């Protein structure tokens, strides 16, 4: 005990520096985590504004507000920003804040690399967003940037886009190397791999996925760069290349990427459900194996994104069945969450509401995913709004809801103050209703044949599209309420206890430190015996 008091005393001199240089030079995992989270929140509003432009244009059939060219730029950058600028950095932010605290480490293993991996991100997105003000406009070829749309037919700003993707990739890879090294080497004594909190496990596996596929993406954009500027023919049929090759390489990255955006969410939701069910998670080891098998399977399913390019029947069958296999570990997870809640002493605070909505709505997205996996049916669904509905269901009420849940769950520990529970519930119900109003009707228009990525549509889709747009505007406003709740919590919240949530102290090291968490935590490692649920 005296060791703890001593180290606390030492830390007194090196608290955070003052002013902007604190943030520029910081190597503290909590500072960097906060910067990642603020960055992704800002990007959420930028990408969200683009979604609002898209929905305003689609409010009624016909050309309304923006030109088709600008509409394409909106669709492309909305996708790129939400994937690379919101979901991924937000999860890295949570990893930075929580992994050292959950494994009882004083900081990340490579703190300077950590600083670098954050600070190149605003540079990458600065480059990407600057293309809006350049001749030829921003990238307009969709977030999947299929060649030759992104090479021969691309606006001249594509080179900026390529460098921006390179930098984003470098940032993710550095972050992942840091996370794996931290988890492998800095766990508290006695915390074996199979005693790690599930959020740590999910990030451990996600980080491996990232360093396996982000370099492949870097390779793909490098090939594009060479095709455009060095006269090579990777994707040019005239020189013996093949545009379909681009799709294979892209989705070899792209499919593991979709699990990169959901596996950490699985970890977060597991923690929240066990806390508010007041029971340890049901089937801990099956949860770990499920995450690992989803990650492994993600490498052999990529071509289900491209059933319609003309594949032999054997290929279609292989990718169809391998994709459907993923439903098994995912189902294991969903049933484990339900079993954890079964006969638990449930309470429904805001994080729990978001977590339960996650389980229900993510499952809807999973089920439409199985429909899309059916190769013969996919020929009808391909490139329709059904696909848009599917991936928004797994990414918005899936990944984004888990991020909101995590923010409510851990913000009392970060700030030492409670958020406004009533406003939190209002935020949840507004988000829950509007997210369904936005994305559920997309299934119907998609099945009826409305193609994605178009600024105009046939008259028969008008009613549903108007509903979707209303839902989207409401969802956008709801997230402004979230910003207000966060600010209110920081400046005007009631003090939070050390434990924050009833019984949380026994479930993780992060709940054993003061609220707000001191600038330096676990200068000496905690003991596993202090956690009841570890035994």
């Amino acid at each position, binding site marked *: 005990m005296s060791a703890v008091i001593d180290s606390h005393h030492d830390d007194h001199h090196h608290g955070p520096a003052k002013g902007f240089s604190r943030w520029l030079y910081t190597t503290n995992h909590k500072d960097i985590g906060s910067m990642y989270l603020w960055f992704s929140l800002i990007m959420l509003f930028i990408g969200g504004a683009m979604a609002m432009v898209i929905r305003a244009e689609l409010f009624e059939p016909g050309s309304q507000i923006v030109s088709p060219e600008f509409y394409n730029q909106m669709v492309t950058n909305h996708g790129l920003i939400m994937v690379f600028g919101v979901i991924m950095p937000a999860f890295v932010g949570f990893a930075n804040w929580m992994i050292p605290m959950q494994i009882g480490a004083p900081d990340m*293993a*490579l703190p300077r690399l950590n600083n670098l991996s954050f600070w190149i991100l605003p540079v990458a997105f600065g480059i990407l967003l600057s293309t809006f003000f350049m001749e030829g406009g921003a990238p307009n070829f969709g977030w999947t940037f299929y060649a030759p749309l992104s090479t*021969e037919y691309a606006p001249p700003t594509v080179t900026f886009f390529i460098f921006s993707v390179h930098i984003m990739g470098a940032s993710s*890879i550095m972050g*992942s*190397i840091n996370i*794996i*090294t931290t988890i*492998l*080497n*800095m766990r508290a004594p006695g915390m074996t791999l199979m005693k790690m909190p599930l959020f740590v496990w999910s990030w451990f596996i996600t980080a491996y996925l990232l*360093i*396996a*596929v*982000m*370099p*492949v*993406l*870097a*390779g*793909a954009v490098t*090939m594009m760069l060479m095709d455009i500027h060095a*006269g090579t023919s*990777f994707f040019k*049929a*005239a*020189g*013996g290349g*093949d545009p*379909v*090759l681009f799709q*294979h*390489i892209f989705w*070899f990255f792209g499919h593991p990427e979709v699990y990169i955006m959901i596996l950490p969410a699985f970890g977060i939701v597991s923690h929240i459900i066990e806390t508010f069910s007041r029971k340890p998670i049901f089937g801990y080891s099956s949860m770990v194996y499920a995450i690992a098998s989803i990650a492994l399977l993600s490498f052999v399913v990529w071509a289900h994104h491209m059933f319609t390019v*003309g*594949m*032999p029947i054997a*290929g279609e069958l292989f990718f169809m069945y391998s994709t459907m296999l993923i439903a098994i570990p995912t189902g294991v997870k969903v049933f484990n969450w339900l079993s954890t809640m079964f006969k638990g002493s449930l309470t429904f605070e805001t994080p729990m509401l978001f977590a339960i909505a996650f389980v229900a709505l993510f499952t809807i997205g999973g089920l439409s995913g199985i429909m899309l996996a059916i190769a013969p049916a996919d020929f009808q669904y391909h490139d329709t709004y059904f696909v848009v509905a599917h991936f928004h269901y797994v990414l918005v009420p899936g990944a984004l809801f888990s991020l909101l849940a995590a923010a409510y769950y851990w913000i009392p520990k970060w700030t030492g103050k409670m958020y406004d529970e009533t406003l939190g519930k209002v935020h949840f119900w507004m988000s829950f209703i509007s997210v369904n109003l936005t994305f559920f009707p997309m299934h119907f228009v998609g099945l009826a044949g409305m193609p994605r990525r178009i600024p105009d549509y046939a008259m028969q889709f008008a009613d549903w599209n108007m509903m979707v747009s209303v839902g989207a505007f409401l969802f956008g406003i709801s997230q402004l309420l979230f910003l207000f709740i966060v600010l209110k919590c920081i400046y005007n919240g009631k003090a939070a206890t050390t434990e924050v949530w009833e019984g949380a102290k026994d479930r993780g090291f992060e709940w054993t430190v003061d609220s707000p968490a001191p600038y330096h935590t676990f200068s000496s490692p905690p003991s596993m015996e202090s956690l009841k649920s570890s035994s």
Partner: protein
Amino acid sequence: MEARKSTLKLILFTFGMFGFGFALVPLYDVFCDITGLNGKVTGPTITTYDQEISSREVKITFVTSNNKQMPWSFKSSSPQMKVETGQDYLMDFTFTNTTDKPMIGQAVPSVSPGRGARYFHKTECFCFEQQFLAAGESITIPVKFIIDPELPDDISSLALGYTLFDVTEEFANLQAKN
């Protein structure tokens, strides 16, 4: 120093995966070559078949198209022909430079259905060769081909498609570099 070791390993893994991304390019070609997927066809091959093998009739369709704004006229002398498997045939393709400046074109072949590609043997063709044509010049080049008698029974027609690309600029750039 454990942390240093894991960091180095992970950095190596990263570079390995970057290399793997590029290795996918030849792997893809080899895979398509072995399996005959994707309608990929190779250059001229020398093939003859024993006349004894029972042959059957297959309909061949010739499709010519121009990429982007390639202004040349590019046609086969007939859009379709009926052939017997295992026998040599010949089809003329005519390229005409309709512009008033010299240009370089290149036609890239593809066979559909992709599954049939490996049974479509071209014994003489202009595959992957550049055509230099002066302003207004025209040239007719034959493609000699033979359909493998092993062609699966359920395939009764094949299409040979050529897409004509304008490679004048690429070629000039290449010359400038050398």
